[in-house]
């Protein structure tokens, strides 16, 4: 029992924080928003130079080993800059293939995903129908769907892998509120689907996705606090820095109280998954719902506490706010996750 980063983890954290702070700048993110929601150069550097895209994937599968704690460290750093990269697709589809793919599937896809040559997207797709290995139906709200080379779809009792180049698959991209991770609608008409081993694929996809989103939210929330604290010492009104007004200070304190809990939530969930703890599901649902709400609350405070400039396009506050909004609704909203917590705690409602 030692609920603190190991030296190696602290080193990874420092590396990725520096990487995203230096490279995922506001300028580049805004350029990516105009270019389909991805900073391809950033993603290439992340995969090739940083060498952390293989986190949570075994070394024999081409990954770098490690686990969800390290994935969370990466996602936290990426989230703190609202980086426009397809990390979520890797954390979901990549984990699903690593956990539920056969040898051929792993060999075909994990290498390109880790190297950054291929981009993955994943979605819950209960409406898909399968007939003779052919999938049909519509899958809405696929994050980064219009960029993906590979899709993982999870239904009620099966999971499939479909290549984007499949003739039976078509994608319509949408202008999305959060332009750093646009949503697309994927339509399948007899697309060729490769089945994944359902239970482990789904479990790994959920764990990877929820931890990725929760950790992004943590990083984003901390950034909204840090930036607002910074602003509050510079902006003068009534002859005083606005950060000297008690109501302002207390709002920032409230943000910190939430964020510290969010930090506990992310790393509790990540540890619980890595250690196969029985409370892993409780931790995952807690982390996703709590961190998303925290981020949203903090990003709203950031706008409010910046006053007029806080709601302009030019200021970055809305990037955080929109990412927070999308994290909230993605992969199960807060009410749904809390209902799962209630089921685990109280049992089913009768």
């Amino acid at each position, binding site marked *: 029992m030692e609920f603190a980063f190991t030296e190696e983890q602290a080193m990874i954290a420092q590396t990725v924080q520096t990487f995203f702070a230096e490279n995922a700048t506001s300028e580049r993110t805004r350029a990516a928003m105009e270019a389909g929601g991805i900073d391809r150069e950033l993603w290439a550097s992340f995969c090739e130079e940083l060498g952390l895209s293989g986190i949570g994937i075994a070394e024999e599968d081409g990954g770098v080993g490690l686990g969800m704690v390290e994935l969370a460290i990466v996602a936290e750093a990426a989230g703190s800059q609202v980086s426009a990269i397809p990390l979520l697709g890797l954390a979901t589809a990549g984990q699903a293939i690593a956990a539920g793919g056969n040898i051929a599937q792993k060999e075909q896809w994990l290498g390109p995903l880790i190297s950054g040559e291929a981009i993955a997207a994943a979605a819950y797709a209960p409406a898909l129908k399968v007939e003779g290995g052919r999938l049909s139906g519509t899958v809405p709200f696929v994050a980064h769907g219009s960029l993906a080379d590979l899709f993982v779809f999870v239904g009620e009792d099966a999971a499939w892998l479909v290549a984007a180049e499949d003739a039976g698959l078509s994608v319509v991209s949408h*202008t999305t509120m959060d332009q750093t991770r646009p949503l697309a609608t994927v339509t399948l008409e007899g697309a060729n689907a490769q089945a994944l081993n359902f239970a482990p694929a789904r479990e790994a996809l959920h764990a990877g996705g929820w931890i990725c989103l929760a950790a992004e939210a943590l990083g984003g929330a901390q950034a909204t606090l840090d930036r607002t604290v910074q602003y509050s010492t510079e902006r003068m009104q009534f002859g005083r820095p606005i950060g000297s007004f008690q109501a302002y200070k207390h709002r920032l304190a409230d943000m910190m109280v939430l964020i510290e809990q969010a930090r506990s939530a992310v790393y509790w969930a990540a540890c619980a998954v890595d250690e196969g703890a029985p409370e892993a599901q409780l931790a995952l649902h807690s982390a996703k719902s709590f961190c998303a709400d925290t981020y949203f609350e903090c990003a709203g405070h950031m706008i409010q506490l910046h006053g007029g400039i806080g709601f302009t396009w030019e200021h970055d506050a809305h990037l955080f706010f929109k990412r927070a909004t*999308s994290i909230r609704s993605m992969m199960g909203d807060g009410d749904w996750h809390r209902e799962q917590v209630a089921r685990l705690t109280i049992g089913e409602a009768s």
Partner: protein
Amino acid sequence: MKLGFSAEDEAFRAEAADWLQGQMAGEFRDIVGIPNLVSKVERRKEWERQLAAHQWSCIGWPVEWGGRDATLAQQVIFAEEYARAGAPNRINHIGVELAGPTILAFGTQEQKARYLPGIAGGTQIWCQGYSEPNAGSDLANVKTKAHLEGNEWVVTGQKVWTSLAHFSDYIFVVARSEEGSKGPKGLSFLLMAMDQPGIEVRPIRQMNGEAEFNETFLDAARCPADAMLGERGQGWGVAMALLGFERGVSTLAQQMQFRNELDAVIEAARANGKANDPVTRQKIARAEIGLNLMRYGALRMLSNADAAGLDGAALTYKIQWATWRRDLGELAMEVLGQAGEIAAGEAYEWSLLPNTFLFSRSDTIYGGTNQIQRNLIAERGLGLPREPRGNS
């Protein structure tokens, strides 16, 4: 204490409803129900001239200035019927609801004759020059300067958050006319034409992608010496009185817009089944209760308008509606789910509810942040000690 309307009032309602519905079903059916303030500007100017032609432009004003001397009940009724007919938000609401009443209260007979017909007639659109980059919450920290040159005021400085400045004809500017003065003292209230070389307007894009607000740069902009409302150096009093009019009957028109937004949330919830979810139902009920309490708060405030001093309901109104609408925006997105995050077309443009969600984040900021509102309530409403200024 009485909520119902008299038979006379109901006759007035019938007349107003009849005319409004006729217009909206006829000549002006192309502008029914536009919620924002920035589209179809020319057609809406035509509509506002049509209102004026039939004496519906500013019914609460005196008859001599184009109004009807309407009672409170009639004004309430007109606001309701205006919204019910789907007539578009008033593009010149700053002129009709703020500038006009302030000129009526502070203007000389000559000033009234100069400005009011353009406002009442729907031919002159107004905007408001209060905030500056360093005078936001600290509104009295105005740096824009005015000095007399012959029979003209010459004004230099920068205003910000000037809503609708890009198609306004006039702006009222709070400027520092007394050199060396500080804070609320030494300010004057000037009425300036926008169409002159000394004024430049640059739109500010908001987080919803639209640009309703602007920066307005004044570089030796001019207005006649007698275009000053109130006494020289006493502009702060005029500026504050104007803010009082923001809590007038116009709040009822705003509430009709809120009603549309809440109805849209309920409709969306019915459409996607969320209307059956007990948790969502609680939140919709809270919104419904809050909206009604805003309505009856406004009626209380208006019914007591003759009473001396600031009434509690009036002081609390801004934070109440701004917070309600922000919460409604959040509820709307919860109800819509991820579908609410997708725009209809390729452009970054938002339909009613997602736009409410995004735009409402500015509601708790402009016109005095929620924090400033709480200061006002505590200090003016409850008599608590004022917040100390720093030294600078």
